[in-house]
């Protein structure tokens, strides 16, 4: 029983078809070709599939695609605007906050949601805010530093 779902995806109206038992992650990757969102566990334990849904970061492997009806969704593909990287993306590059890069889309999305809600977080708040996103390469050190740098950019405190 295929369903038609209407969403606002990365700022654009997007309709897609899905089965009721498909997850939002499957719809994004297999129906919409947005493979930036990754599957690391399929159980909500790694955060690689993080997307922002109606302003809140969620694990898209634990969301039914059908639940996205009428929702606004941001994926990693929606972070850069008009070819200009989001400050988080830029600072992740400058701080070498990624190694294999597989967790990176989910971490960027989670970090954006974190900074949208809390523009000036403490180290503990950043670490707790990203605790749902596993990274096995970096030990998180450079990720935390990159998030701080991006937060300063977004607060307008950084001189370019």
């Amino acid at each position: 029983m295929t369903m038609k779902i209407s969403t606002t995806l990365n700022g654009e109206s997007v309709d897609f078809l899905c089965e009721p038992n498909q997850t939002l992650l499957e719809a994004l990757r297999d129906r919409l070709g947005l493979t930036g969102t990754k599957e690391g566990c399929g159980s909500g334990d790694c955060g690689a599939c993080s997307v922002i849904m109606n302003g809140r970061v969620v694990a898209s492997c634990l969301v039914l695609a059908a639940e996205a009806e009428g929702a606004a969704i941001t994926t990693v593909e929606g972070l850069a605007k008009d070819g200009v990287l989001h400050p988080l993306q830029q600072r992740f590059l400058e701080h070498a906050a990624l190694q294999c890069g597989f967790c990176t889309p989910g971490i960027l999305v989670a970090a954006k949601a974190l900074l949208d809600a809390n523009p000036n977080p403490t180290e503990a708040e950043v670490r707790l805010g990203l605790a749902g996103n596993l990274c096995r390469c970096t030990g998180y050190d450079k990720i935390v530093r990159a998030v701080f740098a991006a937060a300063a950019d977004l607060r307008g405190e950084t001189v370019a």
Partner: protein
Amino acid sequence: MTPFRYLAPTSIGAAIDALKASGGTAKLLGGGTDLLMALRARRYAASVVVDTKRIPELSGVNVRADGSFRIGAATPCSVVAADPALSAAWPGVAESANLIGSVQVRNRATLAGNLCNASPAADSVPALIAAGAVAVVAGPGGERRLAVEQVTTGPGTTALAPDEMLVAFELPAPAPRSGSAYLRLTPRTEMDIAIVGCGIALTLAADGTIAAARMALGAVAPTALPVPEAAGVLVGRRLDDAALKALDAVARAACRPITDKRGTSAYRIRGAGVLARRAAILAASRAEAQP
């Protein structure tokens, strides 16, 4: 996941009708953080999944004129945890909601799901029991109310009929000079299931002694475990070392834990005593800070 139909009713009545029509093969979808995993792992199948999040009465945290609270069953934990009035009145409930899973999970998971999934280790349940919370259950014949500790009957089982659904929690207004807390033990700082959890609510008398106490433990019995003996050793006393020692002892005595991959029975029992003391101290300090 095996195939199922997806329904998103906009009223409690329509949801109950869907449950009824399915003849017991429907599953309610709140945040989905347990349900979708179970469906994917084929721990159970569903012919229809009924999404509760589009029912207006099931969303939000409302404080009523008498200071009591109604928490809609489909309210995500992050909303519960961030609610300023609830955090002031029942900090133990708010902090338990703030410990479930990760941010991603809390943005979806609900207290109703946490309860009805009926895991012995559910974080919010001991805190809700300590708060004296009541579950509002709707069914074909109307609403009924159950104390939270009466909802689960064992691991994975509840007292709800197949055509009933939990629609809200009601929490009383806390008495003056009350404080609550929830603490848990996990190997990691986040993203873990409680090896043991403890929710406690205390009310102080004018002379600084404890006037009322409710405590419940998680992950030490087939369901979250109220420990009425806590009141017995605390009420009428100050929270001094002797009282804490007695509390530690009744917490440990109440435990009926298993040994599994998450923790040994001995460790759980020991942890229950430690958490009872620490949660009591935290709750008392919160009570003292009340006007």
